């Protein structure tokens, strides 16, 4: 679902990464992997990372990257099945949504 959504959004030519002036364009698949990152409260969190400088992995159920320098965005090849990748990120999103509802 997220992969299809991102493809359609980038295809419009009206998709921007943050405050970048130029719109993103569809790029080919690139290599990426899982990395442990530290959160502000000191906990470790599994995140998707992309190889190369100025290339950011998008924290979503679909592994995608954004190359800030070239303005390309596309899918990341993590070497794992899509279902295995989606499960932890979707579970994290569901937990985040539940927490927000309790906070209201």
């Amino acid at each position, binding site marked *: *679902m*997220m992969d299809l*959504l991102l493809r359609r959004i980038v295809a419009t030519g*009206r998709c921007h990464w943050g405050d970048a002036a130029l719109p993103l364009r569809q790029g080919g698949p690139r290599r990426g992997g899982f990395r442990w990152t530290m*959160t502000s409260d000191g906990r470790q969190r599994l995140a998707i990372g992309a190889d190369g400088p100025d290339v950011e992995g998008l*924290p979503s159920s679909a592994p995608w990257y954004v190359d800030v320098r070239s303005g390309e965005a596309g899918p990341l090849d993590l070497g794992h099945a899509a279902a295995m990748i989606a499960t932890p990120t979707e579970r994290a999103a569901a937990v*985040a949504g539940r927490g*927000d509802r309790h906070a209201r």
Partner: protein
Amino acid sequence: MEATVADRGAEPYDVAITVANGRRTAVQVVCSCPMSFNCKHVAAVLYARGDLSGRPRVVPVRDPLAGPAGAWLKRLADAAKSTAGGAGRPSGCLYILDVQDKGAGPALRISAQLSRPKKSGGFGKGPRRGARTDGTAWWHPRRSDRKDHIIFQLLRAGSPYFSAGCRPTRR
């Protein structure tokens, strides 16, 4: 009464009208157009009957949009273009990707906003409001095209805050 009526197509249509006067006036009409009868070609012949003088003639069908109605439609289209943007390009949805962390870890956020084209190229960025994957707002742009509608449907379907049959959350 027989007549040939010119329409927009290359070939004119043949119209035959028979009027029988008895206790009641019976009118039989046949036209070679796809309608076969009671069509605008028959009406054109009946309107022009006074000028026929018994001789077949070509009766041009007047374009209904050639007069004031057509001029009004053109002015309306020009006005719509002028309000759509200075460069004459239509407004469109601008999609912004960024990462947001609400405490449960970073998550991709997709925001959509209505934007207008800049004269120098590209689209201008206005205040961020619209549909977001984090469910913080919901706003459906009226001036979106078919592609944007599909994207908004996918946004709604992919968000953990929205589900089928559920009204979008407003804040």
